[in-house]
């Protein structure tokens, strides 16, 4: 029985403008990577896969893509295990300290990325523990910024979890670990998967924390693109960007299947 649309006209207009601000730069990157010419003009000079081919044989962007992927996989693995364990503690412990602890674990995303990267770099060098300018040193930085995402997502799932299910398993004779593995882990499994997808994407696109921790030998994709952007608009970089865009969009579609995006981000 609604006669008017729920959103006023002016709002729709601005919302479309906002979507354009979000999406047009991304579309431009895709066009630049698929463009036949040496630079992107409007209208485009036709589509070709030459820059995609150039990316797949590039000695800069392909290895950088690989480094980003490797760092993201390892960082995600550590962040998921550490974060999930901490999230279980944060929802089940009765200690008053748990609220303080929860805030503490969110600190790495509140601290400016460049400050966190610089802190780690200074620490690695002054403590002289062999982590400066190494892959493990970089991964540690990424675990710090991805862990909060895991903790938040898994905590949200555990809060709505009905503990009496685990209790029922216990009363039927399951050991605490078996009950946890067969009941709780099964039910919060999708949330854990979604949180590790977020962690992966955050790590894969991480720039600011990486800035002080990467070296010309260990260059992640964002750093390699940044370095090339200082000098020119390399279409090969745009082609590398297309692969990153595909990765992010696929991850988001998969995580939308795993958890309710509405519940995870909407409230």
């Amino acid at each position, binding site marked *: 029985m609604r006669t008017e649309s729920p959103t006023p006209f002016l709002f729709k207009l601005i919302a479309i403008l906002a979507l354009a601000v979000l999406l047009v730069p*991304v579309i431009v990157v895709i066009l630049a990577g698929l463009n036949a010419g040496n630079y992107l003009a409007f209208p485009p000079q036709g589509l070709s896969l030459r820059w995609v081919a150039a990316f797949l044989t590039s000695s800069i962007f392909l290895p950088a893509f690989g480094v980003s992927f490797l760092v993201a996989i390892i960082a995600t693995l550590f962040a998921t295990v550490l974060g999930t364990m901490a999230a279980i503690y944060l929802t089940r412990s009765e*200690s008053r300290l748990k609220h303080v602890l929860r805030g503490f674990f969110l600190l790495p995303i509140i601290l*400016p990325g460049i*400050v966190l990267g610089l802190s780690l770099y200074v620490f690695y060098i*002054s403590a002289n523990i062999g982590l400066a300018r190494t892959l493990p040193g970089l991964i540690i930085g990424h*675990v710090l910024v991805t862990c909060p995402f895991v903790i938040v997502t898994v905590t949200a799932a555990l809060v709505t979890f009905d503990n009496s299910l685990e209790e029922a398993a216990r009363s039927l004779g399951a050991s605490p670990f078996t009950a946890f593995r067969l009941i709780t882990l099964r039910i919060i499994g999708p949330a854990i998967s979604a949180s590790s997808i977020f962690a992966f994407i955050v790590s894969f696109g991480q720039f600011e924390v990486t800035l002080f921790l990467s070296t010309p030998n260990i260059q992640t994709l964002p750093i390699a693109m940044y370095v090339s952007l200082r000098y020119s608009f390399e279409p090969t970089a745009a082609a590398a960007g297309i692969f990153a865009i595909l990765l992010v969009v696929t991850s988001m579609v998969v995580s939308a299947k795993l958890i309710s*995006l509405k519940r995870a981000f909407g409230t």
Partner: protein
Amino acid sequence: MTIADARPAGRPLSLAGRVRSSFRLWWLVAPAFAFFIVFFVVPVASLFALSLNPARPGMIAVTSHFTLANFILIFTHPLFYDAIFRSLGIAAVVAFAALILGYPLAYLIAKTEHPGRNTFLMILVLSSMQLDMVIRMYGLMVLMGDNGLINQMLKDAGLINHSLPLMYNMFGIVVGLVQVTLPFMVLSLIGIIRSVNPSLEEAARSLGASRRQAMMLIMLPLSMPGILAGTILVFALSVSSYVVPALMGGWQVFVLPIHIYQQIAQTGNWQLGAALAVVLFVTSLAVVAVYHFSAAKSSGGRT
């Protein structure tokens, strides 16, 4: 709900029992806690300590000679204190612009009831939030450069003769930061807009309020907590961004993060770089705290 709460009423858990059960869980949080102490608390503390050491280019190790010289230099040298105000000013403009653009989009998503369309819009916003910033800046730079697509189109249309300076200046930085922070604003607003009972708006309309009045008098005040959260988040993200001012400002506009990088990477003055990093962190934290406090007061503690 915890395990203790779920126990049958016949077997209440004593206080000592609950303390014991909390204690038995500690091993779950221990690895993450230890990791954060070693690789987060200690490094940040050593950065703070380094900022109190006298400047010695090329030297990184923290010494026991403490002085405030770096901070005095920052607050007496216009090159540096101007950068603080420039950073804060840009962040304030970005927060405002992101709110103006973000609120209608959040409203549209919150009021989209069709589940498929809603998920589609959410995926668009989330993907653009998660996508690597450098890739998005690449797109913006191709659009906004002196020979970029926008200038090309305007020239072809005969509207301008000379390229408009769209980037390598403050304007470019603001556009870049709005692009990057907009999804955070939208996500902060969607939940709160959705939680406002639609019958409130309908009641106002049926009592004769115009659509605009209902929006301004009902919707906007009730979504204040989300507006506050979103602007604070966008402000904090903007103040601390390095990559956007670097690329969109073309290393011409000196904001705090650019100074930090320059002191470290080009001058090798680690102590001054560390002091600038401390100033950046403390400034953004202080502004957020002041804003949060005054906002909490003005909205009657409803944040």
